[in-house]
Every structure is written in structure tokens, then in C-alpha cells.
């Protein structure tokens, strides 16, 4: 499986994400934000956590207009896989690949800790390594992780089984406890928690590993 990890000025989880993909068996290329094309034959694009462009204007807003993001959007529109984590999730909502927006945490504080996530669906190539209802421990580290969408969008996400993860103890005020959502074709996943920071025994937890292994497995055997 071939993966590309996008690097923006201000990305800080790009290498972690690359290592997590590689540990799961992927062949990874890092791609600079000013590049306007993805490497040929890429299966999945990782949009990493961090503070792209310093979060100026709004988190993810300027990154969403970068040259590489036009190619990421085209890749998704062709049915390609895109995994956006933390700031990457914010970028995917700003590009319109996923609905909603991420607001300042309801408690106003930056939160960095490990939280419980409930796997809401195993029906995606990202979450097939878990059972629906499993509770896993994954770190969060964000200031703007409060997921917001209007009632109609929340109902659509619920009705189409597109909520991938919810918080067991909502840390940031997210509507419907949402921590991660899928696109209609289930190939774009955006999530605020960091599975790449729980993908190696040295991290103190390995509950994120199954996500990378499942994705790599699904795309390698496809």
C-alpha cells in the first residue's frame, strides 16, 4: 500500500503518522504543501496533526486552500482514501470533504490527555479491526476539537452510520460526543484523537495500531 503524508508549515505529527503507516507495512512518501500533485499510485493520503500555517484565520482554513489540498480533494473525489487527524480533521472540514466545523473547546482550555473512545462502527476500512462498541484509549491534544454541525447534518451522520468514534467522556463539548466521522463512501476519515500516538508499545498504549493495520491490510489485499 502506498501512502502520502502531507507536510504543512506548522505540521507536528507528520513524522509520527509516517512511522505509524510504515510500522503497519505501508510505503510512505512525505509531500510538501506547495507541491501540486500527489505521487503516482498513492492509495491513502494522511493529513497530520499540528498547527498548519499557525492556525491563522481559523484552524485548517489556509491549509485547505494550499496547492496540495486541491490534489487531496481530487484524490478523494476519485474514491481515494484520506485520513485526517486533529489539525488534519480541521483541514478536511475546511476543504468540504467532511461536513461540519471544529470550534474552540467548550472549556476554553487546550487539552492533552488520553481519553476513552467508543468505536461506533466497524463498517469502514479504518475501523474494521475493532468491534462496534469497543472502548479504546487514544490521546487527544487540541484546543479546537469541539465538533459542530447543524441538526440535519448530525442526523444524517447518525442515519448513515458515519460516526466512526465518540468520546466516552466528552472533553471538548463536541455535538453528539463526536470524535471522528466518515465520508459518504467511508473512505475519508477525520478524527480529533491521535491514533498514531498509540501505535507503538513505547507510546504507553497500542490501541491505535489496529486502525493502521486494518487500512494497510484492506488496501494491500484489494
Amino acid at each position, binding site marked *: 500500500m502506498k501512502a502520502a503524508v502531507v507536510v504543512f508549515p506548522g505540521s507536528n505529527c507528520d513524522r509520527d503518522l509516517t512511522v505509524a503507516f510504515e510500522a503497519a507495512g505501508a510505503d510512505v512518501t512525505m509531500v510538501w504543501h506547495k507541491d501540486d500533485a500527489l505521487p503516482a499510485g498513492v492509495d491513502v493520503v494522511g493529513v497530520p496533526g499540528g498547527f498548519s500555517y499557525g492556525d491563522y*484565520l*481559523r484552524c485548517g*482554513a*489556509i491549509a485547505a*486552500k494550499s496547492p496540495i489540498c486541491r490534489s487531496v480533494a481530487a484524490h478523494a473525489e476519485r474514491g481515494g482514501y484520506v485520513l485526517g487527524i486533529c489539525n488534519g480533521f480541521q483541514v478536511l*472540514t*475546511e476543504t468540504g470533504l467532511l*461536513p*461540519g*466545523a471544529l*470550534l*474552540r*473547546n*467548550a*472549556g*476554553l482550555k487546550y487539552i492533552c490527555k488520553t481519553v476513552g473512545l467508543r468505536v461506533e462502527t466497524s463498517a469502514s476500512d479504518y475501523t474494521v479491526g475493532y468491534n462496534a462498541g469497543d472502548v479504546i484509549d487514544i490521546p487527544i491534544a487540541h484546543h479546537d476539537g*469541539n465538533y*459542530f*454541525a*447543524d441538526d440535519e447534518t448530525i442526523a444524517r451522520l447518525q442515519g448513515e452510520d458515519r460516526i466512526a468514534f465518540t468520546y466516552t467522556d466528552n472533553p471538548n*463539548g463536541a455535538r453528539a460526543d463526536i470524535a471522528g466521522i466518515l465520508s459518504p463512501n467511508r473512505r475519508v476519515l477525520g478524527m480529533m484523537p491521535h491514533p498514531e500516538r498509540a501505535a507503538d508499545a513505547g507510546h504507553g498504549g497500542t490501541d491505535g495500531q489496529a486502525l493502521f493495520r486494518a487500512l494497510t491490510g484492506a488496501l494491500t489485499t484489494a
Partner: protein
Amino acid sequence: MKARVHVMLKNGVLDPQGEAVRHALGAMGFDGVEGVRQGKVIELDLAEGATEAQVTEMCERLLANTVIENYTVEMSA
């Protein structure tokens, strides 16, 4: 030409920063502040001939996220 764009969170969207300011005003003894919304102002210096329609497009495509924010545009010479 100048344009001034006001961007505000929509009504119904929690504004935790505004709430923090409201609490602080109450703690300072300013009674009767029932709500505070905090937004941003973006000033654009534009070449002659720029139109409000162009600024509106800038708002729609970048300056505001219309999922959560409203905006208004004021043009001046």
C-alpha cells in the same frame, strides 16, 4: 478602496471566548451583561475598482466558514 469584514459566530453556536469575557465583566462588577459574542474584523486594502461582490466571494471562499460564522461587508473609499 477599503473593505471591512466582520466575522461572527452564528447564533446558537457556543462562543466560549465570549462567555469567558462575560464572566470577567461580571467579576469586575459590571452587572447586566447578558451575553458577549466575540468575533473578528478583517480590513482589506483594495485596488481601485474592487467590488463588494469580489469581497463577498473572498468571504465565502476563505474569510468566513459559513458552517459556523456569519459575515458582513462594509465598503468605503
